[in-house]
């Protein structure tokens, strides 16, 4: 059962939620709520934004300023929110399809701007909501409704993508490590003062992905994630061959002295007003 302070962050009147029983996304929502509760951020100062997908339905269930946008566009909306009100705490959730396919351009540019938003990619390796089509993170060889003979597209490494594009905090955990999810989220939320934080939380979709890939029960997926996660420190000692099929978890980037975009914009305002 959720803690009392976490329960207070729920919009129970909007429930039952739409997620399939046992969906990995619920673990992420719970971790986000625990992080917000622990950080004691007043809920009217919290903005939860999202795109479109199963993952993106999360904001509706959270009693805060919630913004369910259009498929792929959440970070661009959140950029406007952040610029208009730099005091809000913004947690932007999106699916792997939402965030890295249709929203890939907004994703890399939000990283580049280093705008103070915590972006959570809920990566279940599939398009869950539309019925199991392949996404940019569907593993090669896996089956999807649009890859009935096995996927051949190489996948994105979301953390490397974020790092390459300039995000100043990047980390990954899986829903099989809920405590680690929460700890990373707390750091990533605090990092908003310094800039753009990307947290890839590897989730699962037993309904659409699992069904076609011999992991149709929630526990099959949970165990799969647990068995295949490798801490970054350990991964650093392993060969590429040994790391095949493994999910490296931990913190990859944390630039403490990064300069956040709206703070830099304040400099623009100062220069404009002096001119």
């Amino acid at each position, binding site marked *: 059962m959720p803690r009392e302070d976490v329960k207070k962050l729920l*919009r129970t*009147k*909007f429930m039952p939620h739409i997620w399939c029983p046992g969906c990995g996304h619920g673990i992420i929502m719970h971790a986000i709520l625990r992080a917000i509760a622990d950080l004691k951020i007043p*809920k*009217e*100062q919290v*903005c939860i*934004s999202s795109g*479109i997908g199963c993952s993106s339905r999360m*904001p*509706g269930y959270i*009693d*805060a*300023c*919630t*913004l*369910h*946008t*259009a498929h792929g*566009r959440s970070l*661009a*909306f*959140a*950029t*406007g*929110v*952040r*610029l*208009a*009100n730099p*005091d*809000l705490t913004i947690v932007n959730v999106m699916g792997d399809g939402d965030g890295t396919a249709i929203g890939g*351009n*907004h994703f890399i*540019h939000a990283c580049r701007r280093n705008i103070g938003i915590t972006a959570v990619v809920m990566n279940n390796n599939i398009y869950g909501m539309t019925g199991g089509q392949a996404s940019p993170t569907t593993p090669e060889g896996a089956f999807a409704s649009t890859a009935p003979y096995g996927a051949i597209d190489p996948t994105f490494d979301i953390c490397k993508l974020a790092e390459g594009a300039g995000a100043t905090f990047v980390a990954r955990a899986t829903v099989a490590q809920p405590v680690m999810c929460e700890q990373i989220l707390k750091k990533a939320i605090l990092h908003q003062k310094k800039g753009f934080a990307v947290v890839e939380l590897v989730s699962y979709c037993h309904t659409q992905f699992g069904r076609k890939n011999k992991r149709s029960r929630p526990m099959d997926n949970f165990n799969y994630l647990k068995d295949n996660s490798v801490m970054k420190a350990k991964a650093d000692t392993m060969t590429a061959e040994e790391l095949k099929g493994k999910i490296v978890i931990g913190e990859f980037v944390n630039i403490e002295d990064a300069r956040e975009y709206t703070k830099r*914009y304040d400099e*623009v*305002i100062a*220069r*404009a*007003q002096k*001119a």
Partner: protein
Amino acid sequence: MAQVEFWQGNKALAMGAVAAGCRFFGGYPITPSTEIMETMAEELPRLGGKFVQMEDEIGGIAAAIGASIAGLKSMTGSSGPGISLKQELLGYAYIAEIPLVVANVMRGGPSTGLPTKVSQADVMQAKWGTHGDHATIAYAPSSIQECYEITVRAFNMAERFRQPVLVLSDEIIGHMREKIVIPEPGTFEVINRKKPTVCPDDFVPYKADDDDVPPMAAFGDGYRWHVTGLTSNDFGFPTNEANEIDKKATRIIRKVERFREEIVEFKEESMEDAEIVIVSYGSVSRSSLRAIRELRKQNVKVGHFRPISLWPFPEKQIAEISKRVKHIIVPELNAGQMVNEVERAVAGRCEVHRKNLLNGELYKPDEIMAFIKEVA
């Protein structure tokens, strides 16, 4: 002393936005509208506002909607392909009821078409460009003065009705320079969105007042609410209930339709005794006016009717005119768009002549004079 300037249309449009209280602009460069964003990049920071150049036009409108939700009067602008890209999120602002002004400086299309040449081919797109039903408000300026003033009006309507309002300028109006007298602040109306008066726990975000428009809180104001592009109920929560769907779908149209006569704008010249009427808007209306002034000297009974609001279209006014004139001529820089609305309003009561130019040029006054002489 009133401030007099010699400005380009795009600059006047941007300065009008600033005067209306716009404090956020999200955009992406494209000819012939770029000067709007360049002006905003210069002006907004001076006033503590924010300008952001996004990664594409979709990002531009998304950021503008986000900023509006967080309480700033917001705007985006573009042309041709960029306007096509904005269509999905225009729909978002209609359904989520977010005040927003979108400037479209029309250029030739389809696709990349004619980046530097004038067109009026986005009139129907302005109404039907995004999927789904909604009520469109779109104003077409025809002078530099009007670029400024109509943009103030566009913001007022966006804030009053909580929805996007389009300013349909065109390449000629956008790039032309002429004199403008800057209205003194305080001499014109500035409308701000209604704010909720109930306490946050009692706030029902989409519960409308008697005017069918719900008060709007800003994120960060102390109110917690849900914004979504899904059809939602008064609580802002997605619904599949037929009665709730109907309530929302009809209200977002009715809130504008009810006040149609307060939104409609037009301007007439030499209409009292006219037997022939030119109906034109935007840059074309300038050629039309020149033509009718010349022909009036020759005692031709010709007048001009200029819709300023293309949507809602001044159909009542056109219907009235059609009862007393013989010919209505509709010159447009497209294959015939607004003329369909004219024909609908006229309903066969007089002759309607379609005149269409698709070569990227503006109608010249003598071409319009020739159209008038054909029927005079």
